[in-house]
């Protein structure tokens, strides 16, 4: 039965994409079709997970070709768990996007391309999770990247094109590194089948192994946004529409993390680069979260926390113990849900307050108490406040680190605690400013500098546009102020395309109206928040599942034997 079901998470979205493309002129049909497809994918994934947990790993030879020749899809506990979380989150985001589209009246705009692209993205993610050979993994990556290029630049406004170009070029580089690594792996072993590689790579000289491993890791670390290779993420993600950023933040980086887990456990279990990974994890955690604290835009804060928390997962992988891997797997599941939810909430905040810049927001708790709850719960969860799943995941990782006991692991444990604390500071700043500051003190009046930055370099000295876009307000003529303005002009010679500012001015104009939040979007976000809370409630069984998956990964034999007899693989 698994044999029939396993290809469906890839096939259904692809067929669905074709279907939605065909009915592109009927947005209602399109919406129903894509929601139905994702519900089907979710149910199939749940069945796959239950079967994988009960019966162990299963491999499916696509097209009936015998194992070393054909493409295999492998469903084990890890990939099935990833599939379930990913498809649940994708479904939530899609419903959110439908709600957003319906309220914005997008029937008139030529956005019929959103649904097919979104489904292709889901197909690519599923394919990457299920791939049983290295080249199929590459193809999965390319499918999801291609879809993500389109989604990220949806609408083609200037900021999106700017962010999109960075994203595309960096992704292309990582793909090329990955492809070259595949070539070298094939040259060294004569196969790209993961199970066969697991057997054959161990027989290579140590130097060759490290070369291949580091090439694969570089490619995956770019995708997962691990520190020295993470600069692209906060640059490009915040420009996209809220649902798109949400699904990217939830899924795309985690596919990279999944690939790192596979590489480290299945292909190179020797732990040659574990120290490097641990150091990268520490740098990712700390530098990411320090970046988040410096930011003043909610989406950018969230993008930086995303980078930072990737460090936790890499930490778990770098430990290379069962406990560490179990913590990393649990953390991936938790983080997919939580990060997606937070980005959706940021979308709601933008809708409610007209901006995501913390300096411009205020009084949200009074304007919409429900929104405040929807932000507060996942934000505390992200920071790792007990009893939420974020706390459980972090606790598991820290315990694994202490149990491992090496000095580096202990440093990482300390780094993890500090990161958690700094995350709390970052989200608490958003919470106090955007939600609790009285609305009258709100936009951009925080500091003279913020006011000046709102006005941009073109504003004459001493005159700053009021937050509501009304008549200019005369501010202090002091020399300090003039100097500050001059400094601002110097610093932003390049910046501030006029178009973006016009957009913001419009947003500011209707700032004072209270936008009622559309029910569908609120309900979906609420459902996802409920999902993150549910992860806390079922944390026991889930952590058990993660531990069993980690044990499988450490043992390697369940994966190998599901594909073929080990003798055949040799």
């Amino acid at each position, binding site marked *: 039965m698994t044999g029939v079901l396993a290809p469906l998470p890839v096939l259904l979205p692809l067929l669905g994409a074709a279907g939605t493309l065909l009915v592109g002129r009927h947005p209602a049909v399109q919406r129903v079709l894509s929601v139905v497809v994702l519900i089907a994918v979710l149910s199939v994934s749940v069945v796959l997970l239950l079967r994988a947990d009960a019966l162990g790993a299963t491999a499916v030879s696509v097209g009936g070709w015998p194992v070393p020749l054909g493409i295999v899809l492998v469903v084990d506990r890890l990939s099935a768990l990833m599939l379930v979380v990913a498809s649940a989150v994708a479904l939530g985001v899609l419903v959110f996007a439908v709600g957003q589209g319906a309220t914005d009246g997008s029937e008139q705009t030529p956005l019929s391309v959103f649904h097919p692209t979104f489904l292709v993205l889901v197909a690519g993610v599923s394919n990457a999770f299920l791939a049983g050979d290295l*080249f199929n993994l590459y*193809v999965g990556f*390319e499918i999801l990247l*291609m879809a993500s*290029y*389109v989604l990220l*630049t949806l609408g*083609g*406004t*200037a900021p999106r*094109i*700017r962010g*999109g*170009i960075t994203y*595309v*070029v960096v992704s292309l*580089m990582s*793909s*090329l590194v990955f*492809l*070259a690594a*595949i*070539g*070298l792996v*094939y*040259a060294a072993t004569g196969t*790209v089948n993961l199970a066969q590689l697991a057997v054959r790579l161990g027989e290579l000289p140590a130097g060759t192994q490290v070369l291949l491993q580091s090439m694969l890791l570089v490619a995956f670390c770019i995708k997962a946004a691990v520190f020295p290779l993470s600069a692209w993420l906060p*640059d490009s993600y*915040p420009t996209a529409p809220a649902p798109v950023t949400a699904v990217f933040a939830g899924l795309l980086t985690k596919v990279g993390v999944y690939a790192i887990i596979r590489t480290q456990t299945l292909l190179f279990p020797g732990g040659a680069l574990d120290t490097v990974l641990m150091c990268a994890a520490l740098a990712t955690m700390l530098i990411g979260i320090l970046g988040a604290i*410096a*930011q*003043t835009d909610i989406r*950018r804060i969230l993008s930086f926390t995303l980078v930072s928390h990737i460090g936790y997962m890499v930490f778990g992988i770098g430990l290379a113990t069962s406990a560490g891997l179990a913590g990393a797997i649990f953390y991936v599941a938790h983080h997919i849900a939580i990060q997606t939810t937070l980005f959706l909430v940021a979308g709601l905040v933008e809708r409610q307050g007209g901006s995501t810049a913390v300096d411009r927001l205020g009084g949200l708790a009074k304007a919409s108490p429900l929104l405040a709850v929807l932000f507060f719960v996942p934000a505390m969860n992200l920071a790792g406040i007990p009893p939420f799943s974020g706390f459980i995941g972090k606790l598991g990782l820290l315990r694994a680190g202490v149990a491992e006991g090496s000095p580096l692991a202990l440093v990482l444990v300390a780094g993890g605690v500090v990161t958690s604390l700094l995350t709390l500071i970052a989200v608490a700043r958003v919470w106090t*400013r955007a939600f609790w*500051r*009285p609305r009258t003190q709100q936009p951009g*009046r*925080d*500091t*003279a*500098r*913020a*006011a000046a*930055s709102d006005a941009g370099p073109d504003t004459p000295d001493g005159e700053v546009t009021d937050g509501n876009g009304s008549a200019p*307000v005369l*501010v*202090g003529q*002091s020399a*300090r*102020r003039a100097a*500050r303005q001059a*400094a*601002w002009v110097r*610093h*932003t010679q*390049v*910046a*501030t*395309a006029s*178009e973006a500012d016009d957009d913001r001015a419009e947003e500011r104009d209707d700032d004072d109206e209270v936008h009622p939040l559309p029910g569908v979007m609120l309900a979906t976000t609420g459902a996802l928040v409920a999902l993150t809370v549910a992860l806390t409630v079922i944390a026991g069984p889930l952590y058990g599942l993660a531990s069993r998956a980690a044990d499988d990964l450490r043992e390697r034999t369940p994966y190998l034997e599901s594909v073929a007899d080990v003798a055949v693989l040799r």
Partner: protein
Amino acid sequence: MTPTIVLPVIIGGLYAAGVYLLLDRSLTRVLLGFLLLGNATNLLLLSVGGPGGLAPILGYAEAEEMSDPLPQALILTAIVITFGVAAFMLAMIHRSWRLVNEENVGTDEEDRRVAARSDTDADELDPDDLAPEDRPAGHADSLRIRAGAVRGIPSDDVDLPSASAR
């Protein structure tokens, strides 16, 4: 069979030129650099197939004389992907040109803004030096209570001089 030196030299040259072009700020050069890198990688894949041989068609050649078909299949896939992505990038470059009349890698404005912010932190400014509108939230004088404006409404400040009295 002696290994050929030609392929590695070409691959290395293409990689070098590709990386050089990729580091340029002009997007067209970035695209060209990407194409060179893609071709270099394809050649690398071709060279991993081992020594050349006859076309791998059953009945046309013996199994021992065939060249390895798998790298060629991989290359075909990679070419298609590179082609698609290159087309998409061209479209983006064109769009960028239409929108902002330049085809350079753009600057992240928000990033610049944050960088500009960081040299003086808001907390270091003396609130009394600032105009009332600019004072931080919570500063007593930021509430803009002017003398006379609120007469008759009792202040909830206990034992504090009012804003105007200072």
